[in-house]
């Protein structure tokens, strides 16, 4: 008996873990995406995995879901060694995955998406009926309400995500992996999701939550593991750690989570917007009479759930869309249509623009860094002294300077834009726009998909530009970012301004309600 005891203890210990990975390694060419990773996930818990972009979180989960085969290492599911060769075997092992980019058939109904691949026989009718019943039960039990007959493309992102969870539950998954689930959700949708996850946990399901938002980790997880550069650097019980410690573990050095800034010293009004209206190509009125002003040396933050007119506002002001109303810059009207309403003319008026989508609007991904640095400024006498033949060596030299000023890594002007990480791509765009010392900087989603370390840097740069006397219009769906950076906050909903608040006189709840059109 005594002899058997340690073995037995080990047995129970092993089967307490829903998942155990031992020594998982995976390389893509010369890049080691996962290095000797071992992790245990206790059954019936929510286990967070954090790490910067490229830390190897997604690769690890893709191995677990059978998208990639590990080069070496073992996977144990419920204590049993398990070979996961493809998604089918992962599903059979009870693993369900909710990808960051949903894997749904857009023009199928919810029911069709749920049964796809898990049909109960050759004909659809019985499968659909069975799924309909099951969905009803799940909706009651876990607040997973979705109209089973709605087409996916007609659903909000939050509802689409519920369909993904339903898909996994329909396949009787015991282990649910969610990859960056809140990136696309409104604050209230995210709260709803976390209620669902907690409900699932109470039913004994195991949940792995991959995220870069430390607040979510602290709020919902039981344990948290940190990955850095392909390695698992630490696993902590969430209650015994702090956001500061996690951030340090992620980045490998001390990070400032709070933005340090002095109070603004706003000067004269730079930009005045009066009754701005815009109707888009589909005939939808996106801006319904917007009025506001920005002064020198202040950051005006515009909060709102994406799709409420902020993008259109940014594009109208940067000359990419035409609109009606009045915009005055430095006591001189800004043309809102016809000639003078284009990016080049706006730049001539010292307005710089950091677009929301850096890959589609901010950069040409196939161009070298130095070619991207010249974009929009190719008439600059430094780059183009003869107005005819570009002085490429001058551009490259200038790019080197800008890259080092903005700590773009690697500092290689000849690298294509697509070769940089998201954060470094964003720094390239910011370097291009900020180094021209604009009077007004329009910036959209400055840190979307950017690592913590780079976020810190970008925020400091924006503050520094403000302190140098520029006016900054900041649009972001990250409420934390708006609250940390802005000197004044405007909330937009459905093309209108819901109200204006000072950051130290409001809180996330109030702004969240305003973003939802209430209050």
């Amino acid at each position, binding site marked *: 008996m005594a002899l058997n005891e340690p073995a037995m203890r080990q047995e129970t210990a092993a089967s307490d873990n829903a998942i155990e990975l031992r020594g998982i390694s995976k390389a893509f060419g010369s890049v080691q995406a996962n290095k000797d990773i071992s992790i245990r996930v206790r059954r019936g818990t929510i286990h967070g995995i954090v790490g910067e972009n490229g830390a190897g979180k997604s690769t690890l989960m893709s191995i677990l879901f059978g998208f990639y085969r590990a080069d070496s290492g073992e996977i144990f599911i419920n204590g049993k060694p398990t070979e996961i060769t493809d998604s089918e075997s992962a599903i059979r092992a009870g693993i369900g995955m909710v*990808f960051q980019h949903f894997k749904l058939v857009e023009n199928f109904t919810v029911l069709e998406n749920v049964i796809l691949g898990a049909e109960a026989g050759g004909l659809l009718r019985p499968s659909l009926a069975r799924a309909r019943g099951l969905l009803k039960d799940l909706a009651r039990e876990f607040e997973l309400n979705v109209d089973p007959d709605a087409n996916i493309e007609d659903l909000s992102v939050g509802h689409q995500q519920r369909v993904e969870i339903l898909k996994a539950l329909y396949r009787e998954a015991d282990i649910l992996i969610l990859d960056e689930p809140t990136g696309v959700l409104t604050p209230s949708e995210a709260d709803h999701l976390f209620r669902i996850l907690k409900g699932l946990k109470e039913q004994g399901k195991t949940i792995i939550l991959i995220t870069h938002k430390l607040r979510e980790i602290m709020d919902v997880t039981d344990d948290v593991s940190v990955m850095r550069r392909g390695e698992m650097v630490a696993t902590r019980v969430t209650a015994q750690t702090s956001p500061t410690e996690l951030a340090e573990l992620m980045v490998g050095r001390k990070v400032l989570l709070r933005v340090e800034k002095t109070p603004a010293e706003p000067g004269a009004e730079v930009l005045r917007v009066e009754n701005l209206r815009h109707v888009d190509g589909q005939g939808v009125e996106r801006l319904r009479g917007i009025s506001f002003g920005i002064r020198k040396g202040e950051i005006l933050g515009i909060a709102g759930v994406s799709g409420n007119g902020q993008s259109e506002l940014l594009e109208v002001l940067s000359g990419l869309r035409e609109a009606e109303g009045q915009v005055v810059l430095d006591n001189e009207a800004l043309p809102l249509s016809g000639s003078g309403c284009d990016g080049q003319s706006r730049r001539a008026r010292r307005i710089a623009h950091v677009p929301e989508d850096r890959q589609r609007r901010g950069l040409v991904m196939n161009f070298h860094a130095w070619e991207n640095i010249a974009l929009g400024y190719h008439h600059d006498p430094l780059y183009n002294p003869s107005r005819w033949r570009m002085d490429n060596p001058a551009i490259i030299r200038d790019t080197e300077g800008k890259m080092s000023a903005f700590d773009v890594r690697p500092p290689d002007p000849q690298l294509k834009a697509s070769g940089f990480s998201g954060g470094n791509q964003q720094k390239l765009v910011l370097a291009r726009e900020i180094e021209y010392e604009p009077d007004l900087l329009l910036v959209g989603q400055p840190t979307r998909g950017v690592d913590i370390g780079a976020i810190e840097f970008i925020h400091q740069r924006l503050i520094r530009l403000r302190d140098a006397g520029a006016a900054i219009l900041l649009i972001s769906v990250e409420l934390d970012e708006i609250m940390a950076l802005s000197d004044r906050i405007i909330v937009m909903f459905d093309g209108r301004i819901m109200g204006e608040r000072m950051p130290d006189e409001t809180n996330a709840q109030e702004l969240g309600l305003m973003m939802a059109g209430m209050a």
Partner: protein
Amino acid sequence: MDVATIVQVLESTLRLATPLLFACLAGLISERAGVFDIGLEGKMLMAAFMSAAIAYVSGNVWVGLTAAVFASVVLSLVHGVASITFRGNQLISGVAINFLAAGITVVVAQNWFRQGGRTPSLSGNARMQRIDLPFVDAVRDVPVLGPIYTILSGHALLVYIAFLCVPLTWYVLFRTRFGLRLRAVGENPAAVDTAGVSVVRLRYGAVAICGVLCGLAGAYLATGLSAGFVKDMTAGRGFIALAAMIFAKWRPWHAMGAVLLFGLLEAVANRFQNIEILGVGVPVQAMQALPYILTVVILAGFVGKAIPPRAGGWPYVKEH
């Protein structure tokens, strides 16, 4: 225009629509699975040649038909290997198949039969026999019903099979597990893959079905509609079938409507080769060009917004 003429034209419409219908459904199934196929023409041509050649040699049209289907499926699999396994460009693979078929049929026909790139003309059991529906003679003189029944009667077996394929295709696509997965793989293969179903196997299945249907189209063309193979006898029907498929927005019943329209135009063009409008004779060529002109007009203006399957034309590459 008398009733007899109308009956004649409509009868011929059904016959002319048959190869188009097979090819159209073939393209529809392939494209619904996300594999664009502009090689319908080539597969039909190859099948037409094989059916005529083998039917002539064996004296049995059904042996010819089997050979036609086999040849067409082989070409389909070539397309499959190029565009599914090796993730090549589907348009280029399709064009290659068209060129290959156009050349190889004539060269082999010349080598085998030495009649200038055609097969000897077929007769007897080497051609498809017409099937008279029961009681056709009895009801011939009944008003309204009689002529309609007459139009439907007296076609080769493949004509009936082609039109039966329409509800069958609809049922398979929209009422079975295979159909659901097939449509899903054409819209979002990643969804199918993460649901634990093989994208590659599904797409090969669709491409093989496409090959079988093209084989039937070609066989009917050479052994039913005509009596032997001649050079380039498909005459762009593969492309007209693609146009019909787009016109039908990838839906089987609408596809039937579309090919009947094209068939009618071709029948009219064949029947009324010398007509005068306002005293001016319309050249034969102008009449024969009608189906092709219609193709352009329909595709340019009348389709409205035709949204192809969203993953159509793109090889599936796993990414997370």
